[in-house]
């Protein structure tokens, strides 16, 4: 018999963290996410303090346009001679911001809707779930595109629209959890004791549904990042001169066959950022669900 602590000794959170830490893939993806967050956070900070790093993303030097990667410009320059690496670092902060806030919005709506539907049941549940079914028929990105185009592409609009369109998955999950948890002994006794519905929801049921909600949140971040990238690519993202990963590629598509670095690097960044969130979220899900 090994000396691993039994599940009776640790809290659920500690158990999940232990399993999560044991997975090498999880560790690697968290490392990437932390790196990404650091870069995304520091770059605009330094910029605001007047220290553009590695160089000014908007500095246009036409004589240096379309240069391949070199020691001077690690990822090359774009069609206006701007340093691609710097633009990408600034783009990282946009992507991360959109990812986090959009997920926060969708989580807020989704948890609320799911809790109400799952706890109160009946007609409210039916109406909410039919609306979810109907909303799910819409191609998400097209809906986002339509709304953002009509509202006007700004960071706030993008974040709110993505959040408003993506809450359905969370709602369904939360509803499912609530339907199950509502029938547990401690909830039933809380009701018998006369506790009010919202107290029960917030203090008793929600904490127990926290793990799957967290997993959905983490898995929702890359979806938001990819949507933002798509919007930027089509020209409906945060507008120039602000650099985003999507619009670097959009600028580069005219020079597709000659300046491959304008396509490769931003896309790689999108891929790596999204992938690490997906892997981390999946590892979290495994850690929350497994039985030892």
């Amino acid at each position, binding site marked *: 018999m090994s000396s*691993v602590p039994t599940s009776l000794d640790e809290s659920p959170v500690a158990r999940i963290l232990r399993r999560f830490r044991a997975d090498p893939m999880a560790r690697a993806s968290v490392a990437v996410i932390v790196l990404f967050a650091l870069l995304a956070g520091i770059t605009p900070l330094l910029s605001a303090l007047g220290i553009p790093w590695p160089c000014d993303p908007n500095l246009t030097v036409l004589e240096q346009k379309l240069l391949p990667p070199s020691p001077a410009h690690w990822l090359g320059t774009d069609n206006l001679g701007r340093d691609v690496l710097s633009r990408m670092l600034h783009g990282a902060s946009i992507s991360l911001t959109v990812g986090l806030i959009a997920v926060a919005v969708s989580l807020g709506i989704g948890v609320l809707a799911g809790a109400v539907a799952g706890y109160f049941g009946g007609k409210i549940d039916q109406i909410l779930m039919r609306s979810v079914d109907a909303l799910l028929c819409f191609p998400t990105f097209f809906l986002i595109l339509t709304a953002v185009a009509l509202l006007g592409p700004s960071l706030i609009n993008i974040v709110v629209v993505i959040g408003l369109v993506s809450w359905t998955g969370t709602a369904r999950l939360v509803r499912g959890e609530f339907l199950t948890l509502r029938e547990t002994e401690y909830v039933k006794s809380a009701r018998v004791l006369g506790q009010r519905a919202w107290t029960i929801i917030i203090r008793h049921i929600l904490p127990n549904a926290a793990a799957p909600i967290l997993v959905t949140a983490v898995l929702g971040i890359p979806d938001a990042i990819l949507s933002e990238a798509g919007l930027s690519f089509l020209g409906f993202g945060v507008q120039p001169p602000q650099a985003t990963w999507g619009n670097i590629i959009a600028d580069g598509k005219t020079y597709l066959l000659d300046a491959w670095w304008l396509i490769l690097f931003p896309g790689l960044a999108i891929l790596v950022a999204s992938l690490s969130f997906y892997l981390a979220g999946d590892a979290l899900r495994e850690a929350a669900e497994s039985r030892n």
Partner: protein
Amino acid sequence: MLSIKDLHIAFRSGDSLNPALKGVSLELGKGETLAVVGESGSGKSVTALAITRLLSSPPAVYQGGEIVFQGQDLLKTPDAELRKVRGGKIAYIFQEPSTSLNPVYSIRSQIAEMISLHRPDVVDRDAEIIRWLDAVGIVDPAKRLHDYPHQLSGGMQQRVMIAMALSARPDLLIADEPTTALDVTIQRQILDKLRELQRDLGMAVMLITHNFAIIRGLARHVAVMYRGEVVEYGETDQVLRSPKHPYTKALIACIPRLGDHRKRLPTIDSFMS
């Protein structure tokens, strides 16, 4: 015909290895019936499945011993050979007939699959299937041919399983608690049918059960298992009359009898201290 010698099997769970069989030895001759009796967890089902290596191998670990069937050690037989033995020489029927049949295929197609795999010389498969369904006691077999498992009652499902197992004409039928999930009235019918078929086909039967009461008249020999070991082995009548091991005594004493005037039903524990 079948000789299990000192079989050791354990199950891996995380980092630890939990022993399931600790040196099990059994013998079964041609055409004979052996009953393997014990409570849940005694290892009787594990023994049965181990014979043709049906235990899922990530958790199960074969640690040692021999399973000699018709001269071959099945633990060392290559997969392709083993597959011919499975079904063709050694067939199984299981406890829960409702979940042991594939729900999306008709009973005809499931039995036909068995026949075409092990008896490719049979030309008219439908006729053969109807013969077998009739032999196990299914009324109006021709009409039942295209039914799906969920359309049949529990007793009928088990009969279909028996028909399917026997249609390949195996030398040994391993019946793992075949009547436990069925109504008491049906149990007797199924067991009688099994005995009849065994006589007609001359095949050997290994009957696994936790119910001592049903084996009399059915099995010539009995092996009693407790916690992964065979604790008693002998002719059924002998063992029932004078059991030697305290566990066997307990099992026999626990069989409820009509006309028994007892205030409290005995449990195994009261015998095992």
